[in-house]
């Protein structure tokens, strides 16, 4: 049903979403924790910065990433200084862009989950002489399990559905930056509607299953 080029795009998309989601959990968890415990004035501005990718249209975000990560941009100069070259048109560049783009989808569920725990379980852990790190891993993380689940699924699904940014900084290179959404767009633009419908149907089924899994797992988690 799918051509080799379609399959390559599907594989690349899954790889990108997996790497992005893992990185987002690593980066997003401390940010969400910090935001959830924060009482200072800075909480508002920091939360706003994290939520910014929700507001900016992806192609606009992609355009500025192209400028920032290009040879004349500060990020581009920095990566060249590091000796890793420029990020646009590479898998690494897509990962960086996806992490920025999907950040709020991971941070916000985690932040909500951490806030819902409240101070008491952590205070109890502290009186039992648990270190803050110990309390975090043995009390906060298990209690925030539904939040981690939601964050993982949303981060993954949102990266799979990403289009505008990849279009701007990807360069449509097979096996490196040509993901499913771009492949569908190409089929549509080339008026090959049959191939586009096939891939799009696959994507619809995939997202339905992912979201269904999210709701089922979450309601089961609440009952237990």
């Amino acid at each position, binding site marked *: 049903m799918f051509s080799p080029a379609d399959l390559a795009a599907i594989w690349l998309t899954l790889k990108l979403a997996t790497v992005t989601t893992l990185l987002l959990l690593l980066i997003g968890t401390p940010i969400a924790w910090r935001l959830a415990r924060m009482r200072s004035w800075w909480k508002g501005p920091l939360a706003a910065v994290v939520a910014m990718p929700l507001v900016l249209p992806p192609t606009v975000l992609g*355009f500025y990433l*192209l*400028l920032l*990560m*290009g*040879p*004349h941009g500060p990020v581009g100069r920095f990566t060249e200084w590091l000796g890793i*070259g*420029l990020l*646009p*048109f590479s898998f690494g560049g897509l990962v960086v862009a996806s992490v920025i783009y999907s950040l709020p989808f991971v941070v916000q569920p985690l932040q909500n989950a951490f806030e819902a725990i409240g101070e008491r379980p952590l205070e109890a852990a502290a009186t039992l002489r648990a270190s803050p790190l110990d309390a975090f891993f043995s009390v906060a993380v298990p209690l925030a399990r539904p939040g981690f689940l939601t964050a993982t699924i949303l981060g993954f699904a949102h990266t799979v559905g990403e289009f505008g940014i990849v*279009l*701007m900084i990807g*360069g*449509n*290179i097979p096996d490196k930056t040509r993901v499913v959404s771009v492949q569908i*767009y*190409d089929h*549509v*633009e*080339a*008026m090959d509607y049959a191939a586009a419908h096939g891939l799009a149907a696959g994507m619809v089924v995939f997202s339905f299953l992912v979201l269904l899994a999210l709701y089922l797992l979450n309601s089961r988690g609440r009952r237990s």
Partner: protein
Amino acid sequence: MKLPLLALLLIAATAARADPVQVAVAANFSAPARQIAQDFEKDTGHQAVLAFGATGKFYAQIRNGAPFEVLLAADDETPAKLEKEGAALAGTRFTYAVGRLVLWSAKAGFVDDKGEVLKRGEFRHLALANPRLAPYGAAAVEAMSALKLLDAVQPKFVQAENIAQAHQFVASGNAELGFVALSQVMKDGKLGAGSAWVVPANLHQPIRQDAVILDKGRGKPAAEAWLKFLRSEKARAVIRGYGYEI
């Protein structure tokens, strides 16, 4: 003032202000189209409302009821296809511009005037519009295979969805050079910035851009006037000024 008189005046006023023509314009032609639209309004009293975009997207929109009355396509296939499918009026199709391909770099002196830079291969990325979607991309691939450079250069390809994005890749410096439309880098008959090699026209099929009146433009005087104006010497001078041939 009596009501019937007021109504009469209103009718007269709307009749005097000509019905604007809705034109879908290929992205590479947006700058000349804007200028021509201004002259069109001044000379004929008709108004042209322009929408810019990719020809493939316009095709999908037109087939699904978009209110465009005229299409200025980036190729000659889409207007022909629309005509065959009955979505465009037969006998209104004509070539309004022939595009020229150019190898362009934002850096001065990077591209020599014979295109030798392609043979030397001292670059990381070569931008071009997706050859499957964009006539300029297909022409670039044809030219490179005519020069027997395609296999050597292909691994360095970065493909843009359209010629506007290819220009962006090169202008931002992310690709050192790329194939774009001459119309994008030419201003008032000369190269705006950077360095360029105008690809000889015999290295690829001519990039014919055709215009056609769409089904929604049937019997609309403004649509016919727009196509007539597009053929005028005044409009052609503008088109040539942007590096097209006609």
